């Protein structure tokens, strides 16, 4: 899939975290790019490294993490070379908008919504250092209220002077979305923003996100574990398994004709209306002791001996990328030799 100047370019990203029990290789050579104006979903079970990927892009990995990568660039800016101060000044909140997973924990309990949102605005709109309690006068407050109206927060003027605990989960997520879009970022990074919400609120939030990205021609990296959400929202999807990107392609193509065995099983295990549930036997391998070769091999129904030997080379073609011996011809060579 040729990409003309992608908003996000991640190639060969590996992240390992020095824990007490040893070194955990959480991400292993992940490649991902997001074309302008598109929504790319990253799907995987919990423990597949999705959140670590988000944190790596935002540069908020814990100190004990070690990052190796060819490049991680957003809107042309190479993030790896930047230190924390530069990331804060140039990237975070400006080029990159971030929507966290748990709205209950993400908002600072002791500050009014207006104050927290103003902090985001002031960074870049060149405003004078107005008072943090959010009752600043002039243009910024009007802009905040207008943004809240956009994310359908009832009577936004009052909302600015209220505290986080006075809002429901859904409303808090809308506030976080408003904060993320405040400075019209080049890329919005959303880390399972609807997982903590009930189904109906989840649906409204997804509808809102879709409308806003289309309306403001935003590009978004949407992390989730639910293919249903991908189907509703995403243009492209990347399937992550145990720190490796195993399949990438247009959402519709991958959903209708999944190629990688793991992708197939992920799609099939969507709970059917008739209540039958298809789970995936076994569990994601621990990053501490990742097996050689294809990490999915122990759980893969179509596994072949070759899969255990070396890691499958990714095959890129018109309909995207897949990293499995079924497609990259490794099996044929094996049988010829």
């Amino acid at each position: 899939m040729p990409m003309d100047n992608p908003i996000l370019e991640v190639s060969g990203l590996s992240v390992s975290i020095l824990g007490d029990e040893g070194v955990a290789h959480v991400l292993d050579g992940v490649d991902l790019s997001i074309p302008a104006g598109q929504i790319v979903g990253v799907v995987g079970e919990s423990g597949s490294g999705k959140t670590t990927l988000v944190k790596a892009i935002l540069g908020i990995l814990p100190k004990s993490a070690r990052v190796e990568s060819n490049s991680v660039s957003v809107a042309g800016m190479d993030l790896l070379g930047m230190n924390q101060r530069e990331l804060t000044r140039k990237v975070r909140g400006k080029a990159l908008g971030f929507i966290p997973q748990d709205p209950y924990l993400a908002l600072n309990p002791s500050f009014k919504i207006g104050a927290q949102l103003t902090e985001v605005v002031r960074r870049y709109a060149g405003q004078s250092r107005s008072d943090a309690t959010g009752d600043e006068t002039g243009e910024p407050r009007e802009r905040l209220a207008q943004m809240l109206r956009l994310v359908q927060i009832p009577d936004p003027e009052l909302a600015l002077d209220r505290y986080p605990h006075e809002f429901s989960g859904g409303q808090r997520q809308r506030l976080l979305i408003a904060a993320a879009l405040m400075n019209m970022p080049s890329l919005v990074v959303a880390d399972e923003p609807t997982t903590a919400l009930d189904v109906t609120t989840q649906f409204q939030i997804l509808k809102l996100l879709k409308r806003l990205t289309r309306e403001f021609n935003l590009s978004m990296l949407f992390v989730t574990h639910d293919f249903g959400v991908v189907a509703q929202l995403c243009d492209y999807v990347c399937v992550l398994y145990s720190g490796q990107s195993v399949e990438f392609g247009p959402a519709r193509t991958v959903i209708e004709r999944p190629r990688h065995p793991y992708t197939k099983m992920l799609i099939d295990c969507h709970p059917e209306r008739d209540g039958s549930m298809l789970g995936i036997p076994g569990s994601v391998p621990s990053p501490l002791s990742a097996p050689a070769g294809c990490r999915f091999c122990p759980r893969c129904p179509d596994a072949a001996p070759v899969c255990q030997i070396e890691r499958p080379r990714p095959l890129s073609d018109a309909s995207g990328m897949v990293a499995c011996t079924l497609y990259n011809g490794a099996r044929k060579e094996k049988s010829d030799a």
Partner: protein
Amino acid sequence: MLRFLIRRVLLLCPVLFGLLVLTFALIRVAPGDPAAAIAGQNTTPEQIEAIRKEYGFDKPLVTQFAIYLGHVAEGNLGTSVYSGLPVIDEIKDRLAATLELTFFGLFIGVVVGVPSGILAALYHNRLPDFLFRSVSIVGVAVASFWLAIMLQLLFSMRLDWLPLGGRLAPGTDAPTTITGLYLVDSLMTGRWDIFVDALKHIVLPAFALSLGSIATLTRFARAGMLETLQKDYITYETAAGFSRHAIILVYALRNSLGGVVTQLGLLFGALIGNAVVVESIFSWPGLGSYSVDAVLNSDYNAILAVSLVIGVIYALINIAVDLMHGLLDPQVAERL
């Protein structure tokens, strides 16, 4: 908020009543015979008996307490065995001296203790953290009189920057009493010269007094900041582009000061209680030395009055502490 204040003030009465009962009982258990103490030296046992009757010490404890409560109700806290003066007059100006010293001491404690605690948290387990923690422990571990005398030797004898003691220089007259706090009164009456003199006299004793509180405030500020920095909203704020400076000094700080505020209440009570050493070395006419004399000389009315006054102040400070908790944490504010 008003409901909270009314409730707490009403709750003040049982606390004070309990305080009086406990102190009254404790005194009677403590050694020393008040009648003999009042009689003074080499008086005959008959004279001591006469005094015992006159002051009613021979009556059963409960009646004595009832009589005492009757007096308190009329606002008469009785007279001191030694000065013959109404105890409330003696306490009045001493209380102002102690409050001024304690407030200034706590101010220094906060200004020095909290920032060092925050810095210690930011350099978690690195050299600055270790240094801040050890230095702050000096205040708790080293005898306050030793520190006080060393301060006198350095700043007053050798450098001669600050006076040795007292509230004002011998030649300076006290400002007209409005609040009894010399610093405040001198400013209110525009007497800049008295203000500077009073400031010079309070700096050393206040610093000596604050040393004890610095250790506690540093440790709790550090613990509070460490805990807060782990919170998810801090991670989110970093990701959302908040500047590190803003996060630490505003957004994390307000959430981390809960522990410090609780300690302020406790520290204030402790400072009044054992300011006696600092007061004696810096000749500060406060409540500390007065209450110790009262205890050692079984001056009952003075002891009861001091406990009552300190009890009231302590309760008011606790109310203030709870209000400050409300300021810091809106959810607590709602429950007030």
